[in-house]
């Protein structure tokens, strides 16, 4: 390189050259991200201020362009009772987060220990993660049907309890507005456990065994080790998983779309399902974009709270 530089050609700094090559390699990904992610995001924000029907055609055969309406869509949102219902349900959905975190940490700890058949269990727990939500939703819809497997099992086994008669249990898992959301949340929990378990397993495996061994030598019990060593050291993983699962909970869609379509009585109407309906059933793209923007603000706020809450953690904790 030195020889070349001395030959009189314009000299390019080695570092600049490396950076340029790196940028060139990144270019295709950046182009794809701009076209398919950032442009739609920016366009979505802009559309929130427009009245736009994607398929409305003018008499001359051209598509009707969006019409600027200022903050009209946002004012409409705050008067919309379905928005409050959807927002409430989306926030209720966050209940799933602590359960999924706790259970997946426990599962990851079990997988991290020397139990027999852990490869089998690890695979088994991960299978729901890679199964299509449509398949999962339909199967759970059958299980939760009034004449489905869940009520059948309850009737089969619970009649041993005094005063419970065989065949008398008929829970309305998906048809009672007060229960349906929790039933769907259970499916999210069931499907997501394996994913978070793997993340926690990676977190656990990065913890130096010496910390735990030292604590055990000092006489700490297993529970004390878990509370005072494992959990604090796992905090970066917990932070990551909490943020991911909070965002997933706030933008839940697949389960609702397949299992309840927002019903009964809007009991499972969540924000993204509502936005989808506004956009693709009512063609009201402007209003849907405004709703999405409001949801994005809430998602941002929740993520910020998560980051603040879990700021301290890992080895810095000590």
């Amino acid at each position, binding site marked *: 390189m030195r020889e070349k530089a001395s030959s009189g050609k314009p000299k390019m700094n080695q570092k600049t050259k490396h950076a340029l090559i790196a940028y060139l390699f990144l270019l295709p990904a950046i182009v794809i991200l701009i076209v398919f992610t950032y442009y739609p995001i920016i366009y979505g924000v802009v559309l929130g201020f427009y009245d736009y029907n994607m398929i409305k055609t003018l008499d001359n055969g051209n598509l009707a362009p969006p019409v600027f309406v200022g903050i009209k869509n946002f004012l409409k949102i705050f008067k919309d009772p379905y928005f409050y219902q959807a927002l409430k349900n989306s926030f209720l959905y966050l209940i799933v987060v602590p359960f999924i975190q706790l259970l997946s940490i426990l599962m990851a700890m079990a997988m991290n220990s020397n139990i027999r058949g852990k490869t089998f269990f690890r695979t088994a727990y991960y299978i729901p993660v890679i199964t299509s939500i449509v398949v999962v939703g339909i199967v759970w819809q059958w299980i939760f049907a009034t004449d489905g497997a869940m009520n059948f099992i309850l009737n089969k086994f619970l009649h041993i309890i005094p005063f419970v008669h065989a065949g008398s249990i008929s829970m309305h898992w998906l048809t009672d507005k007060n229960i349906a959301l929790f039933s769907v949340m259970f499916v999210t929990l069931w499907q997501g456990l394996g994913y978070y378990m793997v993340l926690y397993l990676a977190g656990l495996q990065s913890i130096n065994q010496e910390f735990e061994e030292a604590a055990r030598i000092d006489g700490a019990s297993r529970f004390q080790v878990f509370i005072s060593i494992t959990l604090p050291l796992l905090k970066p993983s917990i932070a990551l998983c909490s943020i991911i699962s909070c965002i997933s909970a706030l933008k839940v869609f697949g389960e609702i779309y397949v299992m309840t379509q927002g019903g009964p*009585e809007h009991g499972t109407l969540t924000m993204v399902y509502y936005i989808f309906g506004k956009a693709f059933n009512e063609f009201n793209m402007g209003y849907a974009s405004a709703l999405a923007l409001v949801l994005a603000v809430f998602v941002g706020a929740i993520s910020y709270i998560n980051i603040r809450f879990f700021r301290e953690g890992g080895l810095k904790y000590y």
Partner: protein
Amino acid sequence: MEKVLKLFIALLISTAFILSGCGQSSAPSGKIKLEFWTISLKPEHTDYIESLMAKYQKENPDIELEWIDIPINVMMQKLMASIAGGVSPDVVNLNPEYALLLAQNNALVNMDEAVPAKDREKYLDNLWNAASFEGSNYAIPWYVTTQVVMYNSNLFSAAGLDADKGPKSWDDIEKDAVIIKQKTGVYGFMPAIDPANFGKLLDDWQCQGIPVLSKDRKQALFNSPAAAARLQWYVDLYKNDIIPRETMTSGYQGAVEMYQRGNLGMLVSGPQFLLKIKLNAPDVYNATRVAPYPRGKAGIVPAAIMNFAVPRASRHKEEAVKLALFLTNDENQLQFCKRLPLLPSTKKAAADPFFIEGKGDPVQDEAIRISIMQLKHARNLSLGLKNWVDLGKALKDAIENSMYQRKTVQAALDEAAEKWDEILASGDQ
């Protein structure tokens, strides 16, 4: 370094070429390229559609066809994205509900104007208005079915009912459903009146001879005592646990699934669902008997129609209409109906003896026989009103308020009718 740069430039240029080729509607050979979309026909009917394509392209050497098959639940999303993206299909298979939503947005070609009278006359008069909006039809009818009552003879026998005699009226359906529930513990009937399918209630009222709209189409009439009594009938069935809770959430699909599990006595459905039952639950299929759809005072039955529409965004509208007429002509429709328990929408094909003679499957043959006999009474009952989404919302609320007993049926319908009147008055109907 130069090599790397050259490589990337080449990559970018080729990507640009690939992307720019996405929206082409003219085939490279200079032929006109027509893209047509169907709903859920692959892979079972790939050979049928491909044979039609080959025939059409042979007869029209200057046209090249591209067939895209789409599941019904994503049809509207895909279609909207294509129209908005300037790559609209030329011919698209839609149900009346979707076609009317598009017609309201001025997005479809008016078939009353685009199709010559001699061709229009080939279709059954009661079905030509497959997507009628403000006095014009925006789609060409394709296949059609009229509903029949399928019932599980095993459950009928277990309940002590005569399995050879199906229900003849809605009163019979109620009586049988009550007995089946009492004697067997499973539900006898699950009507399609879930809020998402609010249009079915409008169909039902019309079949019962109950007017839903004034003649000038400016006023809702479905808050009459007769309409309220009919909805009250459903409410009582729901309240008394004669119909399952899933009636309000799972709709039609839920009823089919429950019937397949052998947990539903009667299923009011189009004969084409027999194929699904035969495949998924052969035992239930073998026990299935078929009875005619109980006609109400109006003496009509609702027609479930599939049709072909041409988006106004198509670049070859004239050719697209011709293709839609070809796909729905007598010969091609008859050929399709011989594959599936469906009925044709053209006069000549519907008169073919095949529909009476059948093809050797007693259950399906009986269903088709009954269905074709009912065809002359079949009507497309869509109202074709503007602001349909808002009108639908008002009616959905009325159904929910009534079924969940938050309001009396009369109060719920009065409220919905008031909203309809407001919407009908504000939109220039």
